[in-house]
């Protein structure tokens, strides 16, 4: 059975201008309990790779530059 990809608006948003993942920072990726954040191969910035969020906020609270914003997932907003 072929697989299709599924469009979803992700709750965690990263401001590329503030994100310092390209300087080696991985704090948000490290702390996420659901392990849904990754560093992009293309931009070298953090982004939400998997829409499996508990909107708990360690990524936002622990980011050293205030680049991460957690929004309420659309389905329960």
């Amino acid at each position, binding site marked *: *059975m072929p*697989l299709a990809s599924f469009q979803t608006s992700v709750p965690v948003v990263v401001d590329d201008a503030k994100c310092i993942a390209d300087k080696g920072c991985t704090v948000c990726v*490290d*702390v*996420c*309990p*659901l*392990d849904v954040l*990754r*560093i992009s*191969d293309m931009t070298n910035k953090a982004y939400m*790779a*998997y829409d*499996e*969020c*508990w*909107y*708990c*906020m*360690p990524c936002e*609270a*622990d980011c050293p530059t205030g680049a991460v914003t*957690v*929004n*309420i*997932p659309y*389905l*329960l*907003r």
Partner: protein
Amino acid sequence: MALDQIVDGLSEVSCDVLVIGGGTAGPMAALKAKLKNPKANVVLLEKANVKRSGAISMGMDGLNNAVIPGYATPEQYTKEITIANDGIVDQKAVYKYAQNCYSIIEELDSFGIRFLKNENGDYAVKKVHHIGTYVLPMPNGETVKKALYRQLRRARILISNRYMATRLLKSADGRIAGAVSVNTRTAEMLVIKAKAVILCMGAAGRLGLPTSGYMFGTYENAANSGDGYAMAYHAGAALANLECFQINPLIKDYNGPACAYVAGPFGAYTANNEGSRFIECDYWSGQMMLEFYNELLSGKGPVFLQLKHLHPDTISEIESTLHKVERPTRGLFQQGRGVDYRSESIEMHISEIGFCSGHSASGVFVDDNARTTVPGLYAAGDMASVPHNYMLGAFTNGSVAGIDAMEFADSHDFAEFDVADVAVERDRVMAPTKREDGIPPNQIEYKTRRLVNDYLQPPKVTRKYELGMRRLAEAREDMQERMIARNAHELLRALEVQSIMDCADMAAHASLYREESRWGLYHWRTDFPEKDNENWFCHTLLSKRDGKMTSEKRAVEPYVVPIADDEKDLYDKQRIRATA
């Protein structure tokens, strides 16, 4: 190499005590084990990252069950929990908790975790329960994880993050020998030999599907997929009273508490659509949840947390705790909905079902030393059977487990496991990565949890359960034969689905076994609507025997604290009686 790419690998390490799960009970168990024998090796294994894992990822806004001299006694607390849990309690473990928890509070205080104090410097304990006073607010409870982590580093606990334990290993004579685990980002496997193992893997919180439909919008931290319950089951340990589900009152759609424990002591209360109170006490019990459920369906719903009648300063104080500490996105959610507590009540609903002894009584069976029925295997926190034990119970019983497990490790050598067991487990774990084509884990998970909602959530109807079990068996076959994982992250989810499926089967089996109704909404069997003390005043223990799921009765241990006849049903009288 890119993260999540699957790497073929298997290595082996050993330690004296292996603690699985770095949330609340786990760090305390690891710390106490290490302090008991500083020369021993203690490994703390965690599926996420100990810095931010578990139910208290962001912190906790209060202790719900603090037994503090001057406010409550261990006898009073033991009595309250016995009554709240409909009498099905081995009091020894609850009493021991009640005796020990004050010293744990003092220890947490010494770690830098602050609790609310009054102007005299005494703990400012509040009343929420039916009988006693046990709720201690933590206005800066966001510091809990950081403070714990400092202690772990100082004690030189070996922390392994991003390893998911999948199965326990035992020797031929049934003693614990270690665990198999898999790296959640590379799929490399790691076998950990250990003399004693402590399971602190949290609730089975990803069992029912939240009404929002968002799979990870669960009441419990969504990482708590019931892996500990599944592992204990497959290791042959007994699990107690799994039919006593966890169901909690929550903010509608948000799936975090409203939260009456925080707001109640300030004068807030739960009310129906007419603005009237309908329950006597906001403490979470099955009996209270049944009244909540009835009110929702009665035409007098929705149900609200009422606080707009309070002074604006009081509301601001409640708001700052609710929006800052345990679930900070609560404020963001209310803001998005345009809800201001000063002018509007908070709409509430009930959560999806799960297993959790932290709030109810469904857990891996343990005695008052946190020992399971498998020699050398311990359990503590939300997944162990000490009822209503909340965060402070996880710390206190984690401490008990850590000390006893190190004593066990000090007096035993490594047990030998069969290497063939590791090979079998490796095949099971990696199977979804070997298929070219199939069904992704998220679809199998959604279907399984949708079936749990449709057929297993109370009221429990025998015919619905039989149908639900048939549908779940079909989904299980798909999971075993057709599930695919294309990278290590999907493999993590594929393994979690297998825990969820095992928990769904256990929930169904345990619920059908107990042929009575008990614990209010938690175990409301429409075919057996009455409480039947003559036949069912007992624990039920579920376990795997000869590869099959079986249940049996176990007598409740004689009470340490006697309960008078006129006290036994105090929690049954939750509904406020209408007055003429």
